[in-house]
């Protein structure tokens, strides 16, 4: 019996010692020159490439980089929990996240982020990006990519209706509906894929009209907002015209593209690498501007759907981390060329845009979509996303869906959206 107890105690002690030593590298690591970067999707590839270029350019550097790729939701959840508990150690040195989260991070946890104002010249960036990384004159993130709002369309289906790519240029939504009816009559295919519940198209339309759920002071911006009224009416008129391939969620876009269920989709430029993955459709796709609303000279054919920025956490190596992100993500031409040509992620720093070396992309039938995206970015209206972009998206989307289904009139849905904006917190 005693022998067994001793044996058991020995196991416990060994386990404790192993556990203790297991923890040691972590505590030692925090004192070494380790730089951890968190990112998701193609932006993790950007981080890996940035590390590779940096190590080539600085062979003597003794910093060790750890690029951790994770799902966007997982990463945001980890970041928010760590920020809310003040656990800087649980955070990476650098991470990438969407524009929509910037305001929350800086307004509520600003002291945990390293200010980047002295490190780079923000005036070189497109204004619509610059306004969304600035808080009270200080810059807390490196603007990286834009989710340039564009319309992707199938040129073969357009041509089947006797139209040309020029006919798709610089449209209004009314002209788009006319073309849509003509194409559907000729091909039987719906003109556009839409998912009002996700409000992706809605957000593109709002910004193309230079408006957003909240104004730059964070006050609700729905009441008496003609642009919102026109945007919702335009979405509804697409449905009334019978030219929409309606999908219930994000994933159904893929099935619709793969099966040629619609001619066009309106989305962020990050759709480009997704569409190019359907190699059997090579040569069939083109991009053009988002159709514009009618009724005001302020309405444009240009918009943005998210995009993101690189953040630096205030911790032991934040000085070096800041220099790294500026050198790589703000100024490195090799990285910019790589991301643009491989993933269609175009820079938002005008100097990098001017220096881009664009390779031919046969998938787009000779259209230089990288240069086209950069050209569109010059005209994207600036809106301040501020707080609550996601909450408004998830609230407005279902309301718009019910408006389109006929449950609400335009006035009723606008009243509902106004109530939501006030409740969610814009009216303070």
């Amino acid at each position, binding site marked *: 019996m005693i022998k067994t107890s001793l044996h058991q105690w020995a196991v416990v002690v060994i386990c404790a010692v192993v556990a203790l030593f297991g923890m040691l590298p972590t505590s030692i690591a925090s004192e070494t020159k380790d730089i951890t970067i968190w990112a998701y999707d193609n932006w993790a590839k950007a981080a890996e490439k940035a590390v590779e270029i940096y190590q080539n350019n600085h062979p003597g550097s003794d910093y060790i980089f750890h690029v951790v790729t994770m799902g966007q*939701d997982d990463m*945001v*959840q980890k970041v*928010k*929990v760590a*920020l*809310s508990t*003040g656990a800087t150690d649980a955070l990476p040195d650098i991470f990438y996240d969407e524009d929509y989260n910037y305001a*929350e991070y800086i*307004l*509520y*946890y600003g002291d945990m982020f390293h200010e980047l104002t002295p490190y780079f010249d923000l005036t070189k960036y497109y204004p619509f990006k610059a306004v969304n990384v600035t808080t009270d004159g200080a810059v807390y993130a490196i603007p990286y990519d834009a989710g340039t709002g564009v319309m992707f369309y199938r040129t073969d289906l357009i041509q089947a209706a006797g139209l040309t790519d020029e006919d798709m240029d610089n449209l209004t939504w009314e002209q788009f509906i006319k073309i849509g009816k003509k194409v559907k009559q000729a091909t039987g295919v*719906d003109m556009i894929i839409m998912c009002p*519940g996700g409000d992706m198209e809605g957000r593109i339309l709002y910004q193309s009209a230079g408006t957003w759920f909240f104004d730059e002071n964070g006050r609700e911006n729905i009441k008496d907002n003609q642009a919102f009224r026109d945007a919702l009416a335009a979405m509804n008129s697409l449905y009334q015209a019978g030219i929409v*391939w*309606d*999908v*219930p*969620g994000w*994933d*159904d876009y893929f*099935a*619709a593209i793969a*099966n040629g*269920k619609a001619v066009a989709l309106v989305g962020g430029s990050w759709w480009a690498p997704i569409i190019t993955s359907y190699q059997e459709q090579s040569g069939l796709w083109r991009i053009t501007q988002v159709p514009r609303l009618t009724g005001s000279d302020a309405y444009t054919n240009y918009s943005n759907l998210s995009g993101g920025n690189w953040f630096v956490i205030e911790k032991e190596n934040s000085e070096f981390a800041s220099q790294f992100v500026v050198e790589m993500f703000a100024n490195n031409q090799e990285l910019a060329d790589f991301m643009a040509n491989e993933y269609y992620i175009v820079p938002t720093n005008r100097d990098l845009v001017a220096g881009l070396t664009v390779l031919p992309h046969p998938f787009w039938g000779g259209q230089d979509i990288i240069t086209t995206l950069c050209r569109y970015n010059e005209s994207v209206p600036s809106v301040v996303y501020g*707080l*609550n972009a*996601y*909450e408004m998206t*998830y*609230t407005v*989307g*279902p*309301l718009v*869906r*019910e408006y389109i*289904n006929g449950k609400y009139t335009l006035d009723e849905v606008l009243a509902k959206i106004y109530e939501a904006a006030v*409740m969610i*917190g814009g009216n303070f």
Partner: protein
Amino acid sequence: MRKNRAHCRWKLLFLLPAMLTIVATVYVPLVYAFYLSLFGGRGRKIEYVGLGNYTKLMSDDMFLSSLVNSFIFTAIIVPCILLLGCLLAYCLWNLKSSAAKRFLSILYFMPSVTSPVAYSLFFKQITYSDGIVSGILKALHVLSDESSLLNSVAGARILISAICVWSWTGFYALILRAAIDNINESAIEAAEMDGASTSKIFRKIILPNISPVLVMVCILSSCSIFELYTEVALITKGGPGISTYTMALYLYRKAFVYVSEFGYASAIGIAVFVLLILVCLVIIIQKKVYGNEK
């Protein structure tokens, strides 16, 4: 006496790890969640608001809609589970071959040990607008060519309910089968000798004897419905509109997707907890009243 006390001490010692684990992983978070629910505000800019978050919940359309959805799901799912569970359990109990019993028991149990993420993605794939289920429904003219099961309120609710029933029924059927196994066989044999039909035996002998287990199944499945998250988050994301929005989904979004309001999210969690206790109480009281009447 002394020996008993020593025995008792040993029992406590062995129970201690489990008790500490439960306290650390259930009760401490529960108390902390309640404490957190008394604070309003976002991020780390929070302040004590007392029961303010609970008052706010009462007028929060999204919360109230998700509450209604939970009751709708309960009304669809629980009766289906009870009905199918009893049926499967009775069939299993009635089987003569023990090999068949074992095989079917494993078969019933498999959905409940399948990852909800895996089967949710599978069901999502087959119910896409061009998925096999949508294809069959379109061929039968239940769905129009341009619509999808997930685009209609009824379709989305039925789909989520069907998945839950598929996933949970087998597990409950096995519990019910164990309850049937415990019934004194002589009562059933006597009824058979008296010429009672199968349905009469089931209604008059089996059902009354397994009713405590049925109550437990009611409670457990209701709890699962009120905490429904994975299926909804992966398949419908609460849509179309907010027709499949659940409280757990709302809680998650309030805490981690929207500007973090941990106090408010905790209040949603506590409200769900209180609601579950109320639902359990209603079921138990109803059973007692019903039992007394009988």
